[in-house]
């Protein structure tokens, strides 16, 4: 089952890491859908179709995603107390998994709708990859404004391998 994207937000609500997978396939299917629509309205052939209409840049997407998880987390807390936590939500196209550490570091993953709960996996990314390769890296700054020091080679490599293993399950 495909995993679409992964985001880390720090305690200043800033996106410090983002990674996308299967982008080409997704754009292709979107372009195909647009092309179908275009052919219905009999658009002239040979017009190069841009990417999916209304698609936002990765940074804008990250901001919206943060807004959504932030609102939903507050909503859940308001409804059932501060010890409850928001785990995931699903639409008919994708599923968003959420994990928050006690230090307000937030991990978000967008996957296929049929994916089972990935909270444990996000926790593992935090413990085995983020803490090991980012926090324990002596060259890495304490805070990561603009994502400085997060996308290090070992972290990227470990994440890539871990995502492959989840997708293969």
């Amino acid at each position, binding site marked *: 089952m495909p995993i679409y994207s992964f985001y880390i937000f720090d305690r200043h609500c800033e996106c410090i890491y983002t990674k996308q997978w299967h982008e080409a396939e997704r754009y292709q*299917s979107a372009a195909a859908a647009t092309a179908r629509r275009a052919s219905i309205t009999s658009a002239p052939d040979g017009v190069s179709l841009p990417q999916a209409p209304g698609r936002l840049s990765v940074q804008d997407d990250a901001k919206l995603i943060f807004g959504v998880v932030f*609102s939903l987390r507050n909503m859940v807390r308001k409804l059932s107390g501060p010890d409850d936590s928001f785990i995931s939500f699903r639409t008919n196209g994708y599923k968003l998994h959420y994990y928050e550490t006690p230090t307000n570091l937030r991990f978000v993953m967008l996957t296929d709708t049929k994916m089972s709960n990935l909270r444990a996996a996000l926790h593992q990314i935090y413990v085995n990859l983020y803490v090991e390769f980012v926090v324990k890296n002596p060259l890495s700054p304490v805070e990561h404004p603009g994502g400085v020091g997060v996308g290090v080679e070992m972290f990227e490599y470990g994440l890539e391998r871990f995502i492959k293993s989840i997708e293969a399950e």
Partner: protein
Amino acid sequence: MVILSVMILNKAGGLIYQRDFHEGLHKLSSNDFLVLAGTFHGVHAITSRISPVHGSGGLEVLESENFRMQCFQTLTGTKFLIFAEPHQPNIDVICRRVYELYADYVMKNPFYQIEMPIRCEAFDRHLMAYLKPKQ
């Protein structure tokens, strides 16, 4: 079947019905519920925008440690939010049934003004009988 709470939002995001059926969620003031409904309405719209795949709709199921919320949006934009226990199966069936009750006892009530808060005694009664039988 344990349904904690039911909310109905009109197409503008206003809360038109809220009722608790079992203990489990906090008791909030009606103003807080209105704010919550408005927030959810906005979030629901954004969730379809941030979709990584083409043509996704808005939020359908939300899971947390203590509850699970199903959102059912009708073709006219009215949203039914059903709060249940985390492992409650078939909430979508319950959603449809609540929608049916809404259609029967709210929409067919000649005194009901559309998009306004629901104050229909028959709807209350039937909803209670369906979601909290034997009481």
